[in-house]
């Protein structure tokens, strides 16, 4: 949501530079340590409370995920996966799903509405719904299937990383409420350092493939996961192994539009130049007279 106390790095559908004379601020990261998560959903409640969101009461479908999916009213959802990485050894992997705040955001690239999607210099990718036109292109562009169109107002919503709290020096609501310290927040450098400590600990405890999920295909993310099985991120409710902005989106928003704009301009100029060099295609006076 709109809040103008953070510096802007990129704006959707804008071809001129964003205001950039102020020195770059520290990039922030929310680090989610899945090995510490107990699935209590306190973060979901904190998110609802801080952002004044109240999703419709859903139905029980036999699994713990509740609500069943992200929505315009549910910006984060615990995804519960029961897996056996080693036969006979059940693991309950609980991933807090929500916007990853990509450094190279597919939503922002796809958005046709100027200023509807903003990337702050601190790395937060935020939707400014007052500029949203409701086309749903961000939904197509997101490599993580995060944005949701509201049926109520035709605008798209997702996690803001509590940009309004971060702007005034507070941590996101989910971080503040997490009872196990599975969610931490700070500078990118500090969070990577913190993750390294956690990974060393996990490896010591037998999780040899433990790793930090910070996919380079989207330029890195400002929400990172500590995964026990970083070699198989798909185990965590289909977390993509190598996410990136898809080739269709790159082609669509990249070279093709430039070529097509030039093509349209060239067609108009070709008509103009044809006319001024060749003149009109006229029926001669004699032909008209013959007919009379």
């Amino acid at each position: 949501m709109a809040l103008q106390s953070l510096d802007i790095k990129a704006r959707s559908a804008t071809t001129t530079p964003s205001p950039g004379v102020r020195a770059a601020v520290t990039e922030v990261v929310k680090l989610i340590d899945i090995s510490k998560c107990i699935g209590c959903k306190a973060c979901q409640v904190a998110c609802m409370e801080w952002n004044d969101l109240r999703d419709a009461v859903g139905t029980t479908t036999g699994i713990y995920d509740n609500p069943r999916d992200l929505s315009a009213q549910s910006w984060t959802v615990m995804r519960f996966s029961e897996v056996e990485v080693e036969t006979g050894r059940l693991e309950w992997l609980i991933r807090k799903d929500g916007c990853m705040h990509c450094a190279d955001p597919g939503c922002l690239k796809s958005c046709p509405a100027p200023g509807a999607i903003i990337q702050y210099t601190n790395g937060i990718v935020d939707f400014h719904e007052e500029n949203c036109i409701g086309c749903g292109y961000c939904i197509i562009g997101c490599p993580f299937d995060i944005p949701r169109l509201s049926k109520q107002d035709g605008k798209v919503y997702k996690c803001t990383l509590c940009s309004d709290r971060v702007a005034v020096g507070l941590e996101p609501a989910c971080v503040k409420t997490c009872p196990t310290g599975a969610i931490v927040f700070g500078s990118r450098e500090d969070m990577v350092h913190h993750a390294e400590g956690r990974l060393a600990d996990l490896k010591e405890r037998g999780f040899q493939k433990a790793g930090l999920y910070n996919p380079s295909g989207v330029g890195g993310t400002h929400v990172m996961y500590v995964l026990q099985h970083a070699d198989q991120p798909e185990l965590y409710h289909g977390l993509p192994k190598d996410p990136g902005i898809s080739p269709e989106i790159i082609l669509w928003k990249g070279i093709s539009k430039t070529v097509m704009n030039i093509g349209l301009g060239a067609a108009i100029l070709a008509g103009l130049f044809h006319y001024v060099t060749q003149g009109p295609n006229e029926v001669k006076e004699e032909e008209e007279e013959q007919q009379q």
Partner: protein
Amino acid sequence: MSQKILIQRYKAGERINHWLVALSFILAALSGLAFFHPGFFWLANLFGGGAWARILHPFFGVVLFLFFIVWVVRVWKYNRVIAADWQWAKHMGDILRNRTDNLPEIGKYNLGQKYLTRTLLLAILLLLASGILIWQPWFAPEFSIDWRKKAVLVHAFSAFVALLCFIVHVYAAYWTRGSIQAMTRGTVTAAWAKHHCAAWYREMMSKN
């Protein structure tokens, strides 16, 4: 100056049909260009802003599709490609230089017009199909994101082709003097008909 002999080229119903197609094409094009590239987003203001342009654009498109189909059905019998058309097309260099004497006799439409109709028909069908896939909030949620990614590409490219057709069509009408009154008043002069569409001219003359 004496009165020129006029031949009816389009009846009132055809003219109304054409201008409904033209109007809905222009509205769909202007609103669609707003999302085509940020450089055109200002066009959204013509429709009351980005959200209104987004809401209205698909309806303009559906209206365009419906009237264009009616149009194609009306003119299809004159759009069959015949051998003379290919002979005519061989003189394209001369035609573009306005050296239009001694051209093969063709019917109501030339090969360029016939292919313009076909290209626009294909482009508009693709625009409709891909447009439904990305029409928020009614239909888009029914389709997978993978399909919708392909649809936005097809939609943008088909729109480009349709716009090229539009530019060619409008220019050709302006360049070929005496054509525009066929669509505004319904008539062309007999000399115009004989000059550009000799076979059609003879057909019309034999009817009267």
